[in-house]
C-alpha cells in the first residue's frame, strides 16, 4: 500500500486520486499508527523549508520515516518533500533530514549571465533522465515545476534526471531506496501519472 504522508503540507489529495484511478492501493498517513501496511512512502510538500521541517517534526513521524527508510522501503519526496532530504537549505536555518547528502540552493538571478533564468522556476520544463525504473515508459518527458530553490546533491551519481533554468540542476535524485523529484508529478498529467505508477512498482 502506498502511504502519502500528510503533515499538513502539499497536495496529498491529488496524489491519492491518481493512485485510486490507477487502482493502486493508497492511503493517507497522518501518524505513526498508520504505518503498518505501508510499503511505499510519498512525502509531498509545498512552502518553505523550515516550515515544512517543523510540520514534519510536529507530526511525530520523522523518526519512524527514517526507520522505514533504513528498513529498505522506497520513499519519494516531492518538491519541498525532496528538498527536506538534503542536509541543509539556503532557505532556512534548520538541519535537513540528511537522507541524500547535499544542500538546497537558491536560483541566483542577479549573478547569472543567462537571460533564461526564471525565479521562481515556474512552468513546464523538459527533463533528461538516466535509465532508471522511475522514468520507464515516459517519452519526451516534461513536468510542472514551481520552486525558487533547487537540490544540489553532494554526489553526481545521486542525480537521476536533470533540467535547466539558467543553470543545469537536479530534477530528480535518488540514493538507495530514497528518491526525490523537484517537479510535481501529481500535477504533470500523463507524465506524472506514469512516474507515480513506476514508483509504486519499485521494490
Amino acid at each position, binding site marked *: 500500500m502506498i502511504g502519502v504522508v500528510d503533515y499538513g503540507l502539499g497536495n496529498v*489529495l*491529488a496524489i491519492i*486520486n491518481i493512485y485510486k484511478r490507477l487502482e493502486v492501493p493508497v492511503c493517507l498517513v497522518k501518524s505513526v499508527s498508520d504505518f503498518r501496511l505501508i510499503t511505499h512512502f510519498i512525502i509531498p510538500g*509545498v512552502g*518553505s523549508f523550515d516550515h515544512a521541517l517543523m510540520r514534519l517534526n510536529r507530526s511525530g513521524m520523522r523518526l519512524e520515516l527514517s526507520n522505514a527508510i533504513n528498513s529498505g522501503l522506497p520513499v519519494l519526496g516531492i518538491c519541498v518533500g525532496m528538498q527536506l532530504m538534503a542536509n541543509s537549505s539556503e532557505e532556512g536555518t534548520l538541519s535537513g533530514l540528511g537522507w541524500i547528502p547535499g544542500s538546497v540552493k537558491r536560483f541566483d538571478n542577479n549573478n547569472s549571465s543567462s537571460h533564461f533564468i526564471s525565479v521562481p522556476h515556474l512552468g513546464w520544463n523538459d527533463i533528461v533522465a538516466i535509465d532508471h525504473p522511475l522514468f520507464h515508459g515516459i517519452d519526451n518527458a516534461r513536468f510542472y515545476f514551481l520552486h*525558487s530553490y533547487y537540490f544540489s546533491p553532494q554526489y553526481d551519481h545521486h542525480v537521476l534526471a536533470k533540467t535547466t533554468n539558467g543553470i543545469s540542476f537536479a530534477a530528480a535524485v535518488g540514493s538507495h531506496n530514497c528518491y526525490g523529484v523537484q517537479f*510535481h508529478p501529481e500535477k*504533470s*498529467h500523463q507524465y506524472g501519472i506514469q512516474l507515480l505508477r513506476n514508483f509504486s512498482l519499485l521494490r
Partner: protein
Amino acid sequence: MLRPRVIPCLLIRSGGLVKTIKFSDPKYLGDPLNAVRIFNEKYVDELIVIDIDATVKQSEPNYPLIRAIASECCMPLCYCGGITTVDQIERIIGLGVEKIGLSSILTHNPRIIEQAAASVGSQSILAVIDVKKVPPFGFYQVFTHNATRNSRLDPLRLARLVESLGAGEILLNSIDRDGTMKGYDTDILQAIRDVVSLPITILGGAGTLDHIKSLFDRFGLVGAAAGSIFVFKGNYRAVLLQYPSPSEKESLYSIM
C-alpha cells in the same frame, strides 16, 4: 526549455461556471466540475478558477467546490476569490490547490502576502491586479469588487509592493479587455514587466491563438490566461470547451 504557459481561466458564480464581458453580463456556461474534467483531459498547462461572487458577497470560499475541483486536476490549479485571511489560504492549500490569488485584500492589507508566504511559501501566492483605464486621462488604476470599486492605486506601485512583500507571481487582468476577444493589453504588461522581475500572467482580451502567439513572441516567458477563447466557439458564442492540441501549442512558441 521552460515554456510559456497557456492557461484557461474559469469564473464561478453561485456555484456555476460563467463568462463575463468587461466584468459584467455573466453568461451561464454549465457545471464547473465538468469543465475541469474536460480541461484535464485536454492536458492544459494550468487552470485558474476565480469565484467572482466571494468578495462582493463577503462570503467564505466555497471549500467543498474547491476541494472537488482540486481533486479532479492533474495539473496546477490556482484559486482566487474572497480570500482575506492566512487561515483561509492554509485551508485551501490543504485542499490540494497550488496557488492562491489575492486581490481586493491587497488594496488595504498587502502585508497578508508576507504572512501567507511565511506559511505556504511565496510560490503559492499570486497577486491579482485588476486594472482599468480611467477617463479622462486614461491612467490605469486598480479596481476591486468585480470592477465596481476604484482603489485609486497605481498598478505599477502595487506590483512593486507585492514583489517586495514576497508574492510569487502576478496575474494582471485587464477589465477593459475582459470578454472582448480583441487581444491582450500589452501596454500595461510591458509597464509592469519593466518594474518587477516576478513571473507575470496576463488575462483579458485573448480572442485568437494568434493573440497568444504574438504575446509569446514579444514577451517570452509569460503566462497567457484566457476565458472566452477556451469556452466559446463562433460569433454566436456557443459554449464549447476547447484548448490547443500539443502540436498547436508547440507552434505558439515555435520561435523560442
